[in-house]
């Protein structure tokens, strides 16, 4: 069997997944992109992860930034370069070139650079090398002929040294790099991109070339945050997760009843849709409350209200969420959707979920996210999110705000969710009543009836609506009907009692007369 290409794991979240194992080992990879696209951070993370996670020391040759600047810049990602340098896991070298200080006369070569690099590699036994950005040589030296020959020699030399190298290059017009570095690097080329769509910035990554290996060819969004770089593979969705047979209560006995008295499936996804003010958040809070009562953890992502607001509001319907927060079972995370891009939201949710390990996650409401991205993107993000959470066996409850009554839920959600509860307003006779019904619920018997949904001080309640000869009666009409029924019976009773009494009287009378 022929030997497969050996790969070096980068340790960067998601990148090893796309590249099916990392970048080519013992070869040179080119990372290119415009200014500010994250080339330096990317290559630095490669070294740091290599040093910490894979026991491969690394050398960073900086042509642009000074080493202390570099250390400060990546400190925000939680990388402690000084410590790594002390432990001999990392070596930084700044190659300073100032055109004004340098005069060229006659023949020369770049052996000085080679010697420095070799010395750095040998001093810590480096397995990984980053040159950031080699192209700076072109700015400081005028003899391009020598430079090109020397660069070619450098890349050969790196291969001979059997180090896994990353070189970075600034994107040029019409070319991947300004000085055509891609000619020299033929094994792996990764393009980073930073663009702004609808005033929201998104970073993307694409593997342009990867010789001798399969790789993802799409554009993948990636993020830079306090944990470093995260690449989000969009299309790694598989439909092969395990399912649970366990049922968990919705937190509302009357709603449980609609699902055969047992509630939702554990690990399923639930969508609650409705127009404004129909009590979507309340149903979600009820479920969260129930989860916490079972001493399980829950996370509530609110895109509309602040945690304090939700706690206060839910107290009014008899849910003491503050108690669960205090016990550490419930966590709230509020963020305006427009605060950052979709990918950032997604990654924040991923991270919190990874940290808290909840059994229930609520997103309220997901429709607000539509304001930050194109519909297609929101759809794909939600798909990934729900899929990810369900893959972890987490029950996901999302709410969706409908703008009009007949609007179709179309974030691709309807096919994704297992259970869909719809709430609608009915306005008649000077009052507004809420009707709730189960649109679908996969794999369980569920009621086909429409119920009246009532929110009171004691909590949420579903009431059977009155189906009378005059049609559906809800709200005060139903009450009236009920009352009438009762009073009718009372009246009847009274009449009966009256009748009986009279009879008794009648029976007794003659005796008295006698």
């Amino acid at each position, binding site marked *: 069997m022929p030997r497969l290409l050996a790969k070096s794991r980068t340790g960067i979240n998601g990148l090893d997944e796309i590249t099916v194992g990392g970048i080519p080992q013992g070869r040179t990879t080119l990372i290119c992109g415009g200014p500010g696209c994250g080339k330096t951070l990317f290559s630095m993370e490669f070294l740091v992860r290599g040093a910490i996670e894979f026991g491969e020391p690394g050398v960073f040759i900086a042509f642009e930034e000074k080493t202390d600047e570099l250390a400060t810049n990546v400190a925000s990602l939680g990388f402690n370069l000084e410590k790594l340098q002390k432990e001999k896991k990392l070596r930084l070298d700044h190659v300073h070139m100032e055109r004004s200080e340098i005069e060229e006369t*006659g023949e*020369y070569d770049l052996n000085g650079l080679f*010697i420095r690099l070799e010395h750095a590699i040998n001093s810590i036994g480096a397995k990984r090398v980053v040159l950031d950005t080699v192209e700076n040589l072109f700015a400081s030296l005028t003899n391009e002929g020598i430079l090109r020959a020397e660069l070619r020699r450098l890349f050969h030399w790196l291969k001979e040294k059997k180090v896994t190298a990353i070189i970075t290059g600034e994107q040029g017009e019409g070319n991947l790099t300004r000085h055509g570095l891609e000619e020299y690097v033929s094994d792996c080329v990764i393009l980073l991109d930073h663009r702004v769509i609808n005033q929201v910035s998104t970073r993307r990554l694409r593997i342009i070339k990867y010789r001798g290996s399969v790789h993802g060819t799409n554009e993948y969004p990636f993020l830079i945050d306090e944990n470093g770089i995260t690449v989000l593979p969009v299309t790694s969705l598989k439909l092969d997760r395990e399912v649970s047979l366990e049922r968990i209560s919705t937190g509302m006995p009357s709603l449980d009843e609609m699902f055969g008295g047992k509630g939702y499936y554990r690990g399923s996804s639930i969508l609650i849709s409705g127009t404004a003010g129909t009590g979507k958040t309340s149903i979600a809070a009820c479920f969260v409350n129930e989860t916490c009562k079972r001493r399980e953890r829950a996370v509530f992502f609110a895109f509309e209200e602040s945690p304090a607001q939700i706690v206060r509001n839910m107290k009014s319907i008899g849910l003491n969420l503050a108690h669960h927060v205090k016990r550490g079972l419930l966590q709230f995370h509020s963020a305006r959707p427009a605060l950052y891009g979709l990918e950032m939201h997604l990654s924040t949710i991923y991270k919190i979920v990874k940290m808290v390990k909840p059994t229930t996650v609520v997103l309220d409401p997901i429709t607000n996210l539509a304001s930050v991205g194109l519909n297609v993107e929101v759809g794909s993000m939600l798909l990934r999110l729900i899929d990810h959470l369900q893959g972890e066996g987490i029950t996901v409850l999302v709410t969706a705000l409908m703008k009009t009554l007949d609007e179709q839920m179309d974030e691709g959600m309807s096919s994704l969710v297992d259970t869909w509860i719809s709430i609608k307003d009915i306005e008649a006779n000077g009052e507004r009543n809420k009707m709730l019904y189960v649109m679908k619920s996969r794999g369980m018997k569920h009621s086909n009836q429409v119920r009246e949904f009532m929110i009171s001080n004691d909590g949420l309640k579903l009431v059977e609506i009155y189906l009378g000869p005059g049609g559906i009666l809800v709200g005060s009409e139903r009450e009236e009907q009920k009352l009438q029924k009762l009073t009718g019976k009372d009246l009847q009773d009274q009449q009966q009692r009256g009748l009986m009494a009279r009879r008794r009287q009648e029976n007794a009378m003659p005796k008295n007369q006698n």
Partner: protein
Amino acid sequence: MGKKQQTWELRLYVAGKTPKSLTALQNLKKYCETHLQGQYKIEVIDLLVHPQLAEGDQIFAIPTLVRKVPEPIRKIIGDLSNEEKVLVGLNIRPVKQLRVE
């Protein structure tokens, strides 16, 4: 020139005895003898022997001539074949017109 005698401290970085390095050293000696007689010091550093010294003077090309004193530091890379450029680069005033011969 008067009393203000200054010593020029020059450092030539090479990597082994390559033809380029030898040419550079020869050229340098010739220029110094002509223009800086008695006021110069040349130190040749072979980076193959002392690779750790490359970082300090920011050497990346070979050969590189570094003028340490007088300040500021100046660098000339190449085999120093162009005398005029070297003199300008080191900021040395020629003793006499060169083209007199």
